Structure formats: structure tokens, C-alpha cells
């Protein structure tokens, strides 16, 4: 029987295409489960999961928590804002304290890139990276690819452009890994200042003209400008950014084909996309949110099956 090649989901970089296929197949079944009148299965009734959020999150945290509860796991939540981290406790100490309460799995978001990898070397529980700084956000990339597959039938051979703040985006990096792994063609588009140097080495095209990028692509994944991670000014003004890299209905209608619009949220309406685009049939933003629960259920289920009882 198939199982994941890894014991943790630390990043897309560490998994294989076969793993992605298995996750998607399992997610298909969970998508059916969450559309039943009773949306819960008892698989993980003897598993305890700690959601450790050292950085703010709304939808990812809710999505993970819902996925865990739909699988009947016991869930404990921790957010750094109200914790001993503020009193100077180290990451390993914090996590070990939580694990000594017999926790089997950790879902962690942390502002430092590599926090998940670091932790996996020091503790026994299975770890799911829910975002580590500007590094990776693997479940977001998985649900993005799953949503593309659902809408377009397959990911392989499709042209996907990721637009916006590539430099500060963990969603962009995980998406690049995931899309390349599945055989899609990937382009990044944004102001020069927000595109990391040497990103071509990951096998992606770079484009600074949004219209050209949209004409090339089947799917445009619009990212938010992450003002909270910006230490300096990367573009003159939000208004100028919107003029060059914002997508509105007129721009979409002027293309000679219909492209799919994605957004990992939260949306800054009127900045990276306008309201009429976000709410149009071309946008699969709310599908992404629904698929997020199914994909996360699949990841948790498959990793939990590898935890020694």
C-alpha cells in the first residue's frame, strides 16, 4: 500500500511527485467526506495535534484546526502572543514542554525560515510546516495545485504565473517547487525589486510586464504585497504598484483567452486584484479555501498513519 516518503511535511522540496499524487487522491476522498451531512470521520481519535503559531494566521490556522477536528483528532492551540516565548523560552523548550503532554503531531508556523527542519532534528513528533518565514508554505502550494487540477483537469503542461511579492513570499517558493515537480511551466512576475536574484535557477521564467505574463499563462496566482515583511520601500507607492501589477476586469477581458485567477488570501481588494475580478467566475479563490481543508486532512491523515502507535 502507498505511503508518503517522508515522516514530516517540512516543504515541497523534500517530497516527491508520487507523494503529491497520493495526497491528491486522498484529498479527493476527504472532499467527499466534508460534503456529507455529517462531515467527520473517526480515524485520528487517538491522535493529539498541537497547532503552534508563532506568527499571526487566520485562515491557515482555522483550516488546519477544522481539518484536524474533521478527522476527530484532539487539538491544542498555542499562539506565541500569549505564551512563555515572550518570557524568553527557546523554541525547543517550548515544543518539548508541549510534547511532554503526549502530543503526536505538531503543526507549526514560525517567522524564521527553517524552523520546522530545525525542530524535526530535535523532537520525535511528526511536524507539518504551516509557513516558516519567507521560506515554504507546503500545504498552501498543495491546495493551489489541487485547485488547478480540479479546474483544468491537470497541472502538467499548464502555464502558471505567480504575480506580486515573490521576494517575501513562502507561497511563491512552495508553489514553484510543487508546480515544477508536477511538470507545469512557471513564470514569476512583479517589480524587479520584489523578484529574488537568480530565481531563474529554479527553472522559472521572469517577466516584469504583467500583460505579457497574463497573455502567456493559463493560471495567474496573485500574491499579496507583504508590507509587514518589508524593511525598506520596494516600490514608490501602492497606487503605482496597482497600476503596473494589479489585475482588473478590463485587463482580463482584453486578453484573448479566459485565465484562472487564484489568490492565497488575504486579499487586498483594489491593490493586487479588484473586487470584480475576485468575485468573478474566473476566480477560484473560495474553492482554494474549501480544498485547503480537504488537502490538509489528507496530509495529516497520511502522516498520522506513519506515527508509531
Amino acid at each position: 500500500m502507498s505511503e508518503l516518503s517522508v515522516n514530516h511535511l517540512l516543504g515541497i522540496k523534500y517530497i516527491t511527485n508520487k507523494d503529491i499524487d497520493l495526497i491528491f487522491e486522498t484529498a479527493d476522498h476527504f472532499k467527499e467526506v466534508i460534503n456529507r451531512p455529517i462531515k467527520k470521520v473517526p480515524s485520528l481519535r487517538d491522535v493529539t495535534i498541537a497547532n503552534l503559531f508563532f506568527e499571526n494566521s487566520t485562515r491557515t490556522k482555522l483550516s488546519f484546526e477544522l481539518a484536524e477536528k474533521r478527522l476527530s483528532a484532539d487539538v491544542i492551540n498555542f499562539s506565541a502572543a500569549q505564551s512563555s516565548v515572550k518570557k524568553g523560552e527557546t523554541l525547543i523548550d517550548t515544543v518539548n514542554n508541549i510534547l511532554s503532554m503526549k502530543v503526536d503531531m505538531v503543526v507549526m508556523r514560525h517567522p524564521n525560515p527553517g524552523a520546522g527542519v530545525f525542530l524535526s532534528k530535535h523532537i520525535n513528533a511528526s511536524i507539518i510546516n504551516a509557513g516558516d518565514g519567507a521560506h515554504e508554505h507546503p500545504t498552501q502550494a498543495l491546495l493551489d495545485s489541487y485547485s488547478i487540477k480540479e479546474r483544468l483537469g491537470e497541472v502538467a503542461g499548464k502555464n502558471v504565473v505567480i504575480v506580486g511579492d515573490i521576494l517575501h513570499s513562502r507561497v511563491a517558493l512552495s508553489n514553484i517547487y510543487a508546480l515544477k515537480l508536477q511538470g507545469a511551466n512557471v513564470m514569476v512576475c512583479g517589480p524587479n525589486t520584489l523578484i529574488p536574484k537568480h530565481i531563474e535557477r529554479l527553472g522559472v521564467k521572469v517577466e516584469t510586464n504583467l500583460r505579457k505574463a497574463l497573455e502567456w499563462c493559463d493560471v495567474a496566482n496573485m500574491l499579496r504585497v507583504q508590507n509587514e515583511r518589508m524593511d525598506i520601500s520596494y516600490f514608490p507607492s501602492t497606487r503605482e504598484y496597482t497600476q503596473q501589477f494589479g489585475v482588473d476586469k478590463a485587463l482580463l477581458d482584453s486578453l484573448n483567452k479566459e485565465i484562472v485567477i487564484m489568490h492565497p488570501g488575504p486579499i487586498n481588494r483594489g491593490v493586487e486584484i479588484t473586487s470584480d475580478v475576485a468575485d468573478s467566475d474566473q476566480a477560484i479563490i473560495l474553492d482554494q479555501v474549501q480544498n485547503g481543508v480537504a488537502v490538509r486532512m489528507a496530509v495529516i491523515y497520511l502522516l498520522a498513519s506513519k506515527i508509531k502507535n
Partner: protein
Amino acid sequence: MSQKVLLNATEVNIILHRLACQLIENHNNFSNTVLIGIQPRGKYLANRLASILKEDYSISDLKLGHLDITFFRDDFRRTGKTVEANQTKIDFLVEDKNVVFIDDVLYTGRSINAALTAIQSFGRPREVELLTLIDRRFSRHLPIQPNYKGRQVDAINNEKVKVHWLENEDEDAVYLVTS
């Protein structure tokens, strides 16, 4: 490994018709009854019975579904391997319906126990019955018995009952395999 034939194609066919007739005796025109094939192997039997009921006995309005019990199993993380899930396809609610579970082999009863929990996600059935092609006697772990059975088999633990279906294995037959 040796195997012996328990039922050949003709015998399977006779049994299927008998089971179909027994279902009609108890469920009349099936207006308040649904047939649920338990995945992965029960679906072949359920599909076959449904087509016999429709084609040979003119039951026109028959509700048929397939139920996967993978996420309801009681041995998750206990067998050391991940069990792949199958598709659940139930396009109706079972609220206040007579449900007939259909599976090819009844062995320990644990799958049916899981199915009893799983079906509750689709409503509260009025009554649940069990139909099985092969009933392996004396091997039950739980107090579960079939209401309709094709053939009873006394098999010891290192023996396995394998049901072949025309749709999947190119023949209708039941084998007793000794490892």
C-alpha cells in the same frame, strides 16, 4: 499456495438470483430500501444484484450506493501500513430508510462494524441488514451476523476466501486459498 474452487460461475449465478429473490420477499418494490455495497469488494456484488433486480425482476426504482469505510476502520495505525481509500458514492440520504449492506465475504465483522458507523454520516437508517456472498463461520470478533447469505464456509485462519467477479477478474468464482 493451493486453492480449491468453492463456487463456480453457475453456482454463483444461482446464488445471486436466490439472494435477489430473498431481498424482494422482504423489501417488496424497494421504495423505502437502499442497497449499499461496501468498498472495495462489496460493490461488485451490489452492482450485480442491482442489475438482476432491475433486469430480471423489473424493480425500476432502485437506490444503490457504494460506501468506503477506510476512515472508519478501527485498525488505523495498528497494522503498520496505510490503507488506500476508495470512492464513496451515495447520492441520497438514508434517513428513515431500510439499508442493506452488501459485502462479498463476512469474516471478523470489523468492516461491517465500521460501516455501521460510517453510514450514520448520511442520516439515521430505520433498519440495517447485511447481505454477504460468503459467511466465514466461527471467525467473528464481533456479534455481527448476516441476514442473507450465499454460502457458509468453515475456513481456518491461514485460509483465505477469494471472490472473483467477471467485471474484474474475468470469471465468476469463489476460491479457498491456503497459504
